[in-house]
C-alpha cells in the first residue's frame, strides 16, 4: 500500500534519514522500532508532507506523494497521530474533531462520523465541550486518534502513541489499534514500547541512525535481540 524508497531528509546539513526504504502492506499493522534519534519521527513527517525530503519516493498505491502538499496527502487517505499527541489545547473536544475533518466537504457525513467516534470513545463524549488541554494524557491520545480518524484515512500513522502513559492506558491504546485494524484501517506505527508493539504487529522494521537495519515478522526472529536493539541501538549487541 505504502512504498518508501531511498528517502533522504535533512535538517540543514545533518541528514536525519540516510536513504530509508520500507513498505507497509494493506490491512497490516506495521511497526517501526528504534532508539531515540534514529529518525522515526522525521520519517513520519516526511510521509505526511510536512518535511520535504532531499530525494527518494513515497508511493501510496502507486501514486507519488513526494512533492505534494500536506493537505493533499491528508485528502489522499493518510492521517498522522503526531508525537506528543498535539491536540488543540484551547479548543473543545468537538472542535478538535471538526478540525480533523477540515479538508472534508461532506458536512452531513462529518457530523455522523463525529457522533460515531464519540460513541466509540465514551471518555471523549463525556468531555465533548471541555477544552482539550484539560484532558489527561490518555484522553488526549484518544482524542488525537479520533481527530485523525475524522479524515477517514486508509492509512493511519501513529507516532509513539504510548509515550508517557500509564500501563493500563497503554494497553487500552493498543486494544484500540487492533480494533481499528480489524475495521480495515492499515496502521503504520512508530513505537518505543517494543514489547507491546511486537505483540500487535504483523511486520516490523528496525531503524538505527537514519537507516532501516532490520525487517521481519514477530516470531520469525529472536525477539530479545530486536528489543535490545530497539532500545539501545546495535552497538551493544555482543
Amino acid at each position, binding site marked *: 500500500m505504502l512504498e518508501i524508497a531511498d528517502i533522504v531528509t535533512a535538517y540543514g546539513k545533518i541528514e536525519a534519514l540516510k536513504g530509508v526504504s520500507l513498505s507497509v502492506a494493506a490491512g497490516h499493522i506495521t511497526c517501526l522500532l528504534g532508539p531515540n534519534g534514529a529518525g522515526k519521527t522525521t520519517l513520519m513527517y516526511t510521509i*505526511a508532507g*510536512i518535511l520535504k525530503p532531499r530525494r527518494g519516493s513515497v508511493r501510496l498505491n502507486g501514486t507519488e506523494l513526494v512533492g505534494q*502538499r*500536506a*493537505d493533499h*496527502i*491528508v*485528502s489522499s487517505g493518510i492521517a*498522522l497521530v*503526531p508525537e506528543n499527541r*498535539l*491536540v*488543540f*489545547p*484551547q*479548543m473543545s473536544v468537538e*472542535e478538535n474533531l*471538526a*478540525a*480533523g475533518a*477540515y*479538508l472534508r466537504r461532506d458536512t452531513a457525513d462529518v457530523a455522523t462520523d463525529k457522533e460515531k467516534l464519540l460513541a466509540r470513545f465514551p471518555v471523549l463524549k463525556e468531555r465533548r465541550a471541555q*477544552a482539550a*488541554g*484539560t*484532558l*489527561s*494524557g490518555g484522553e*488526549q491520545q484518544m482524542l488525537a486518534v479520533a*481527530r*485523525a480518524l475524522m*479524515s477517514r484515512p486508509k492509512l493511519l500513522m501513529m507516532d509513539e502513541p504510548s509515550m508517557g502513559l500509564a500501563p493500563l492506558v497503554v494497553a487500552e491504546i493498543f486494544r484500540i489499534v487492533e480494533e481499528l485494524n480489524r475495521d480495515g484501517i492499515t496502521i503504520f506505527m512508530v513505537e518505543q514500547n517494543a514489547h507491546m508493539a511486537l505483540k500487535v504487529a504483523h511486520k516490523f522494521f528496525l531503524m538505527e541512525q537514519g537507516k532501516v537495519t532490520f525487517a521481519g515478522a514477530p516470531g520469525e526472529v529472536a525477539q530479545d535481540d530486536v528489543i535490545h536493539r530497539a532500545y539501545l541501538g546495535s552497538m551493544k549487541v555482543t
Partner: protein
Amino acid sequence: MIADALQTLLNGLAAGAAYALLGVGFTLMFGVMRRLNLSYGATLMFGGYLGALLMAKAGDALPDGLLAVLAAIVTVAGAALAGLYVERLCFAPLRDRSGVAAMVSSFAVWMQIEALASLLLPRHTNPYPAPLDLAPLHLGALTLRAEHLLTFAVAALLAVLLHRLLSASRFGLALRTLSDSTAAAQTVGIDARRITLLAFLLASALGGVGAWLVLVADQQVTPMFGMWSTAKGLIAMMLGGLGSIPGAVIGGLLLGLVEATGQALFGPQVRELIAYGLLFVVLVARPGGIFGRATVDLDAAARERL
C-alpha cells in the same frame, strides 16, 4: 455631576470602541503568527494618508458625501494592501525561523512607510474628510457626537460579524487551530501559509476600519498616527490578554474608559500617561492580561488529572 460622569463614560466608550478594533487586528495577527507586527500602525497610517491625499487632490471636485465614502474605501483598502506587503516582505519568508528578525524587519517597514507618507503629504497636519456634518445629538443632559454614534455602530457590527466568521466558518476554524497550535494544524492538513496571509489581510482591514473611525472623529491625520495606533492596539491587546479576541475588545473599551476618566479628572495632558500606567498595573497584577486564557493554567490542569 452624574450627567458629567455619564458623559465621560460615553466619550470613553466611543474612543474605546475604536481602540477595540485596533486591538482585535493586532490580536488576530499575533494569534496566527506568535509574532509582533510593529508596522501595524504604520500600515493603518498609510491607509489614512491615502484618504487625506484623495481630499488634497480631488476634494474640491467631488461632492462631500462621495469624497467621504471614497476616503473610507481607500483607507481600508490601503491598510489591507500595506498589510499584505508587510506579510510578504517581513513574515512569510521568515516563517518558523527567527522571530526577532521578522519583528525588526517590520520595524524597518514602519520607518519606510512613514517616510513614504511624508513624501506624499509633507505637511505635519493633513485634513481628513469627515462623512457626517451632523449636529450632535442631545439626550437630556448628554451630548452624543454623530461620529461617536458611527463608531459604536460600526464596531458593534464588525464584532458580531467577526464572531460569526471565527465560530461558524471553515476559515474561522482554520484560523483558530493555527492560533492554538501551528504544529497540530499542519497534521490535519491546514495550509498555514495561506491562512496566515488571509488572517493578515483581515486584521489589516479591521485595523483600517478602526483607523478610519478615529480619523473621521479627528478630521486630520499626522505622521504620528502610526505610532499612536500601534500603541493603542498593543495596549488594548495586552490589557485583554494576548491572543484573546473578546479580551482585546474589553481591553480597548477599558482603555478608552480609563483615558476619558483620567482626562476628566486631571486634564488632557495626563491622558497618555494614564494609558501606560494602566498597562503597567495590569501587567504587574495579571501578566496574562485580564482575560488571558493562560496556557500555563491548562497545562497545570492536565498534569493534575494525570
